[in-house]
């Protein structure tokens, strides 16, 4: 009797260990999401008020061309950002993996932007990409009179400058993940393919890259998480402009909730944003869980 009780206790230890985390998640993630949902059904302005108005905020939200632009921007930004980080990260990882000299130096150079916040580097990015101050001016002064690089001030192109800076920050991390993946691959298969006379590009394309699939998945999740939370970067570089051409849902939400005093409206945009996250993330999680 005593023994089985002890056994039961021992079996419960893992559950006890994760219980605090469980409670924290229930309250501070899911509880707060629920609170936010309730808020989105009210007419709160400056501070939370519980005067319910149904789905009014959502109706207004979907009638707003600015909100649609924010979603469109998020889509453009995150797909380009994720694709570029992975493409450049893969290229750099493959090249670094060619037994080159100064590997550590290159790796550190690629990785270090991850350590910096955009609060610190934002002004510099703004300068460098500004045609009157930065790169364009420099190249023109070097003698290339017709060189233009004015995306930052172009309503249609400004979102791409955000991608440039974001890629700068996160590519190194993806590169390291992929490098780690590359080094974990069994060399025998590759040697066998070499003996069969396959060219290196072909070996990479047909044999190595497919094996990196789990790493790609992790990278995508981490990058998507970064993309959705992108906030400081836009604030410091374009403040959402020119006009509001570089607005993102996170900026939209902050702007309406805190500086425009439309708290409930901001809350409704947060709910829609979470919904989108769910659409993209849940299938991945499902996949991840099924695998193991």
């Amino acid at each position, binding site marked *: 009797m005593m023994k089985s009780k002890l056994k039961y206790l021992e079996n419960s230890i893992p559950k006890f260990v994760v219980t605090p985390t469980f409670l924290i998640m229930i309250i501070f993630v899911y509880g707060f999401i629920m609170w936010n949902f309730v808020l989105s059904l009210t007419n709160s302005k400056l501070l939370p008020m519980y005067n319910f108005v149904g789905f009014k905020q959502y109706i207004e939200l979907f009638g707003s061309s600015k909100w649609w632009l924010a979603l469109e921007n998020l889509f453009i930004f995150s797909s380009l950002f994720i694709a570029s980080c992975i493409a450049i990260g893969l290229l750099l990882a493959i*090249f670094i993996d060619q037994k080159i000299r100064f590997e550590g130096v290159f790796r550190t150079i*690629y990785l270090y932007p991850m*350590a910096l*916040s955009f609060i610190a580097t934002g002004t510099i990015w703004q300068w460098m990409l500004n045609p009157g101050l930065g790169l364009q001016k420099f190249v023109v002064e070097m003698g290339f009179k017709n060189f233009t690089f004015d995306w930052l001030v172009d309503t249609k192109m400004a979102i791409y400058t955000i991608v440039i800076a974001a890629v700068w920050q996160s590519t190194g991390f993806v590169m390291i993940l992929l490098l780690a993946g590359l080094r974990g691959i069994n060399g025998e298969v590759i040697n066998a393919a070499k003996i069969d006379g396959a060219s290196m590009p072909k070996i990479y394309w047909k044999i190595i890259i497919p094996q990196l699939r789990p790493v790609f998945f992790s990278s995508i999740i981490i990058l998507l998480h970064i993309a959705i939370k992108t906030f400081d970067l836009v604030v410091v570089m374009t403040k959402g402009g020119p006009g509001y051409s570089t607005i993102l849902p996170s900026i939209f939400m902050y702007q309406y909730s805190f500086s425009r005093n439309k708290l409930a409206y901001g809350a409704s945009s*947060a709910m829609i944003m979470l919904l989108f996250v769910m659409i993209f993330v*849940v299938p991945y999680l499902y996949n991840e869980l099924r695998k193991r």
Partner: protein
Amino acid sequence: MDVIIKEKNSNKISRILIYLVLSIFAIYFLLPVFVMIITSLKDINEIKNGNILSMPQHFTIQPWIDAWQNARIGASAHGIKPYFINSIMITVPAVLISSIIGSFNGYVFAKWKFKGSDLFFAFLLFGCFIPFQVILLPMSQTLGKLGLSQSVFGLIFVHIVYGISFTSLFFRNFYVSIPTELINAAKIDGAGFFRIFFKILLPVSLPIFMVCIIWQMTQIWNDFLFGVTFSDVSTQPVTVALNNLVNSTSSVKRYNIDMAAALIAVAPTLIAYIVSGKYFVKGLMAGAVK
């Protein structure tokens, strides 16, 4: 014979190409910080009249001294030094505690699965994606009720709460790659939950702790949103001070001091990356994110 020479040549060309590509990207990655450094060493007139990419004509480290201890931030002129100390007070405990919690959670999710543990893990992961703007107000209210409002403890608490999703993920993925046979053998020998953790897993966990610590340190040290929302003057982190220094509605801007302050503010994470970058890579290779 001919073929071999050709191959050698093409090999040489491809080597050169590799170094070329790597170097071009190195420039792209280095340029912004290079500009920050040279700007911080110029005097203000040189910045206003010169090219941002030109080297300083008259080197001066005065902007660094001003940024550290003289610059006016709000109503007092003591530079970013006190805020730097606040950031350390917040970051160190928050990083350590969230990493330790993450290690235990990861251990459970990897090696002591129970009914529903996978589902719980999925819930935990989804927690990574909550936009932080959403939690500012309810969290303020909660901290107020807990009596932690505007305190260092409050900030540490918030960082732990929203950090454990990631730390648990890192440790779980690392521990999954450790052979379960090892653990089963220990169980047969009568070792319990904690004994196995401390005797078998912990000794090999250094690389993953490094990954976790560096990741968390980057997140917490660089955080602005929580720092600005849950602090007061005695607890504001360095990012908020930096923001206060560089932002002004109607005053003259001193870009050299701004840049020096920014470089000082990022120094700890930067140094951490350079010094422990090796472990970071090792840790990731050992399977932090697979």
